[in-house]
């Protein structure tokens, strides 16, 4: 945002600001407030949609009710912000009108000053006269010229002083406007950034408060950056209910950022993190119950992002993660109990995505995760076991709900393979046949169980664990 107005006589702009841009912001806020109001109306219809009953329906309707309350709050915030911005536009317009008048007066005074400065009588000073009468006449002319010069300079100074007073008033009103916006957002704005590190690295942490930028009212941004060598960087920002945080730590390239803004696309909170090697980066954005976070960690290329949007079409949350090798990426977006997350682990390409939408079209939640050897399209038991264990705690609840009856018969046997149940959905290759001896299978598995017992018995399991622990320490020492 900037002014192209010129003030050569005053020498400065006593009322800087782009009224057109500010007026546009006010119109945008008013329009968005209207759309949010429409979204609230749509949610009202959603709440009363028929057919769905039970505990889950009650929980959902309760949550939608809370969302409706939040939307009412958001509507009020935007109306109040619009009022402040419109008021500011009006004040600025009046001050710029005054500034124009002062510039005209200053130009006139400056012209008078230049005229007075060019009065030839000022050159009489120091001259010799042959008679008393001529000397007295010259003295009078010189005094008149210096009087005009002093008066002209005083007039110009007076106008410029009025300009300074106008600028002070402008700054005061602008500060009141910023303070009012902070109050609308729910409290005081505080921002901080910090960075520390070693080995000549480049680190930075920064946070910025509300500003109008690129056609959007940015509520704030926080960033943390880290390049080359070890260290950490952090940026935080709080503005009432809005909390932003960006963090980065590790080595060789990691950055995290978070931000929130109000614009034509509604109220948006977003966060993202990227890590190069041995790094961790995270970003989080929160506004009331609306939150988004992204986090990555690991080695050699990882990134995660998440965003949550509240606009006229409802609440939309999405998260994505991608890792290159030996890394973990996750993204999560939440609104109250509505949550969507995605994560990817392990190596050789892992990506994940998820989304959740609630709006006039109903509720849509989905996600997909891919982990492992994408190239071959095949997941082996041993590699899969690593990913299952690392991500296990995240899905235990869902697994308990959906998995307890997988292919299990009345005798407690699980069935796996061509004759199995849900555990082999998709199956594949059915129709290819193999002739084997079931008795030999029983013998081999019995011997295999015995071999495991011998291996563990020959070297007690606790000793194996201790040996593995020593290896871990050795790895840690190397790293």
């Amino acid at each position: 945002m900037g002014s192209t107005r010129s003030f050569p006589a005053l020498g400065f702009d006593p009322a800087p600001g782009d009224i057109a841009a500010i007026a546009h912001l006010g119109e945008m806020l008013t329009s968005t407030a209207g759309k949010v109001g429409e979204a609230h109306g749509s949610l009202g219809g959603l709440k009363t949609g028929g057919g769905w009953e039970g505990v889950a329906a009650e929980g959902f309707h309760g949550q939608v009710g809370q969302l409706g309350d939040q939307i009412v709050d958001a509507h009020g915030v935007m109306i109040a912000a619009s009022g402040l911005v419109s008021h500011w536009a009006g004040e600025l317009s009046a001050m710029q009108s005054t500034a124009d008048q002062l510039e005209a007066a200053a130009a006139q005074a400056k012209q008078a000053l230049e005229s007075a400065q060019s009065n030839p009588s000022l050159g009489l000073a120091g001259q010799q006269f042959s008679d008393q009468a001529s000397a007295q006449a010259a003295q009078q002319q010189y005094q008149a010229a210096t009087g005009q010069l002093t008066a002209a300079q005083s007039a110009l100074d007076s106008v410029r002083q009025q300009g300074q007073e106008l600028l002070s008033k402008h700054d005061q009103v602008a500060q009141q406007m910023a303070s009012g916006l902070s109050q609308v957002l729910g409290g005081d704005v505080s921002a901080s950034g910090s960075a520390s590190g070693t080995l000549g690295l480049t680190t930075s942490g920064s946070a910025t408060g509300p500003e109008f930028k690129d056609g959007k009212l940015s509520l704030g941004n926080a960033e943390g950056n880290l390049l080359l060598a070890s260290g950490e960087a952090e940026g935080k920002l709080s503005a009432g209910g809005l909390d932003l945080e960006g963090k980065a730590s590790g080595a060789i390239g990691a950055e995290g950022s978070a931000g929130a803004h109000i614009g034509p696309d509604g109220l948006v909170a977003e966060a993202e993190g990227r890590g190069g090697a041995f790094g961790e980066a995270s970003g989080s954005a929160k506004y009331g119950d609306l939150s988004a976070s992204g986090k990555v960690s690991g080695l050699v290329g990882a990134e995660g992002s998440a965003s949550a949007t509240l606009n006229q079409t409802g609440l939309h949350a999405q998260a994505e993660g991608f890792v290159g090798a030996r890394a973990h990426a996750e993204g999560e977006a939440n609104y109250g109990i509505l949550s969507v997350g995605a994560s990817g682990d392990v190596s050789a390409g892992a990506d994940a995505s998820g989304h959740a939408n609630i709006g006039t079209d109903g509720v849509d939640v989905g996600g997909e995760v891919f982990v492992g050897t994408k190239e071959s399209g095949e997941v082996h038991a041993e590699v899969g076991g690593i990913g299952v264990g690392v991500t296990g705690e995240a899905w235990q609840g869902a697994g308990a709900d959906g998995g307890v009856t997988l292919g299990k018969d009345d005798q407690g046997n699980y069935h796996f393979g061509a004759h199995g149940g849900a555990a082999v959905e998709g199956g594949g290759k059915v129709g290819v046949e193999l002739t084997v001896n079931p008795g030999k299978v029983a013998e081999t598995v019995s011997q295999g169980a015995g071999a495991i017992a011998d291996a563990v018995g020959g070297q007690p399991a606790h000793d194996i664990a201790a040996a593995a622990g020593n290896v871990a320490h050795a790895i840690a020492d190397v790293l």
Partner: protein
Amino acid sequence: MTTAIPLPLTFKLPDGWQPVPPKQVGMAANTFVAVHPASANGFTANITVAEQDRSDDATLPQLADESVQRLESVTTNVTIQNRTEVGSPEAPGLTQILRLSADGLSLIQCQFFMSLVDEHNADRHVVVELTLTATNDQFPDLVGDFQTFVSSVRLDTGE
């Protein structure tokens, strides 16, 4: 018996183990996954079952080496603690205990490979992989469960 591929297997899970949908944990749909929630502490011990349809003459030690190589591509410091061959020519087996590090954790993986050779075509075989993955702390208490699990595996004859 003549059966379709993937081979139908039946087995029992010891108490405390819980099956989960494989797709939900990033595994292929034609695998079996069970976890041990009670011992989870930053890592959830798990048993995974998968099959490979092989038409080459790869031996079980070669397949075990392949497994080590796959793990080395995604984890660090993989070392073979023990390897034992068992079974018969018709159904050779191999157990392998590995130590490795992943995601900052020290893990132990106990693998059991069983190759089921087609009686009509010796070059054709299906390899069943049964794997226990656990942390150092979890392994001593769970390896007995894995032995029980392995010994319960049978061809599902539908009887």
